[in-house]
């Protein structure tokens, strides 16, 4: 059985089992816009891609996962000559502390292809988010995560790495939701190439995800 078939089978099983267990599940595709900068202001990329997101909620516990695949090309005026493809996986698990706030933890992993055209990053997320229902079926969300223990494919370390997010979920009709998400990521990476001393090799990325989701 292929991975796709297994995924579909798992999805169908989950869609039938989730409501019975009192679990609210949404899943859907996303269109993604992204900007990426690395090391210096001249090295900047812009691109778009597609992805998918799924979320689940059981009482005060919620989980969210998103996968996007981006094709980033050098932006106008960029010093970069070649683009690359990035695959980013984000995952969160959150616990509601109040009707409008929760703490969350998760992981982020972004890989670049070709491998050395951009930094691949992996980190643990720790943070909080605030959400508010601004109308019938419409919720806005703001999150701030600290990216702990980041790892880079090119080495180096980052003492300060944050990830800010703005989210929107609107019930369009019945089980169909419209979703939008914005992520700003700043990683203050430092490297010490050849032992000549640390230099800044910061990474900055903004991502906008727009999609639809089906509530199961």
């Amino acid at each position, binding site marked *: 059985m292929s991975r796709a078939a297994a995924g579909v089978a798992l999805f169908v099983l989950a869609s039938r089992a989730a409501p019975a267990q009192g679990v609210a599940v949404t899943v859907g595709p996303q269109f993604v816009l992204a*900007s990426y900068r690395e090391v210096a202001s001249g090295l900047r990329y812009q691109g778009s891609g597609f992805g998918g997101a799924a979320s689940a909620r059981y009482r005060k516990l919620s989980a969210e996962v998103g996968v996007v695949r981006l094709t980033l090309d050098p932006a106008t005026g960029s010093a970069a000559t070649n683009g690359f493809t990035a695959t980013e996986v984000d995952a969160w698990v959150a616990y509601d502390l109040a009707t409008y706030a929760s703490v969350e933890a998760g992981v982020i992993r972004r890989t670049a292809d070709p491998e050395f055209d951009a930094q691949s990053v992996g980190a643990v997320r720790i943070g909080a988010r605030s959400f508010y229902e*601004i109308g019938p079926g419409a919720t806005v969300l*703001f999150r701030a995560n600290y990216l702990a223990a980041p790892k880079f494919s090119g080495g180096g370390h980052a003492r300060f790495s944050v990830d800010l997010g703005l*989210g929107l979920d609107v019930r369009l009709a019945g089980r169909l939701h419209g979703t939008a998400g914005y992520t*700003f990521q700043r990683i203050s990476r430092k490297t010490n190439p050849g032992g000549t001393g640390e230099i800044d090799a*910061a990474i*900055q990325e*903004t991502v906008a995800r727009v999609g639809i989701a089906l509530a199961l």
Partner: protein
Amino acid sequence: MSRLTRHLCALVLLAGFAPPAAGRAQAVQNATLRRAQQAYDNLEYRQVVSLARAALRERLTGAERARAYELLGFTYGALDSILKAVDAFKQVVLIDPERQLDPNRVSPKAYSAFDVALRQVLLVRQLRIDSTSFVGGRGAVPIRFTVTQPARVVTRAIGGGGGGGAGGGNYVIDSGAWNGQVNLSWPARLASGDPVPAGNYTVVVEARLGQNAFSASQPIRVSHGSVDTLPSLTSLPGYQYLPETEVPPQSWRPLGLAFLYTGGALVGTLGLESSSLGSSSKRELAVVGGAALVTGFVMTLRKPAPRPAAANILYNRLLRDQIARRNQDIAKENVARRQQVQLTLVPLPKPSGAGPR
């Protein structure tokens, strides 16, 4: 006063002695008594006395006999022979104890003579038992009667057992010394507390004073039925469920929140941008922030979503609990009611020929 005026006054005075039931003369079969009635109508009192006495020596029905004595009572009253009038009226009430005179239609002399006669004879009059229905043990049958002299009065219910009073029980309702109007209540229960068996009874009121005794009776029918059960409540009178959600008033809050959240993302982005990397693209924030602001604006214009009304929910819960508690009580009450008996008591017409002893 002129002679004519005096004659008119005498006529008016004499008209006061007119017997109230003049129509009875038509039912009188005895010729002598009819003549006595005519003589009374013609104010020939001497002739009334002789004819009435002659009629009493003949064979008369009870009603005719009572009528003859009544004519004598009125006539003696008109002739100012009060003692004789009282004696005549005594005979009337002994024959017909329920006889009543209308004080508006008879002369005061005749009425007072009749009243004195009533007090000199031991009678049980105006025995009344009203139709009633009640749950066994929770009500009583009202019994009213009048005793004309102070006497020992025993009230009984005789009969039962389903038919005609024969072969039934004898239940003492009351025993006491009474005079005048008497009101009794009979719970219609046996000594064990059970209701008296269904059937026909005769309520007998027996008054005794020395050697004199008098009794009156009234047949009644006692029937048993099932007690109506109470319906369950779905609501309490005067209390209604309140809506458990309420629509908050329309406000700019949704747009304000969208601004707040979008502003937070914008401020965070601007504040955290790396100086070495330069200003980042705002295209992504514009897309998502714009969507959030548009959504906030739309939600501002839309009718707000109903939200739970905590006080109403609590009130409804209390109301539901109260109704459930009342229904439990009703269910218990219905269990008890199904074991109870509805007694219905109806007075029956007295059989013809029945009279006082």
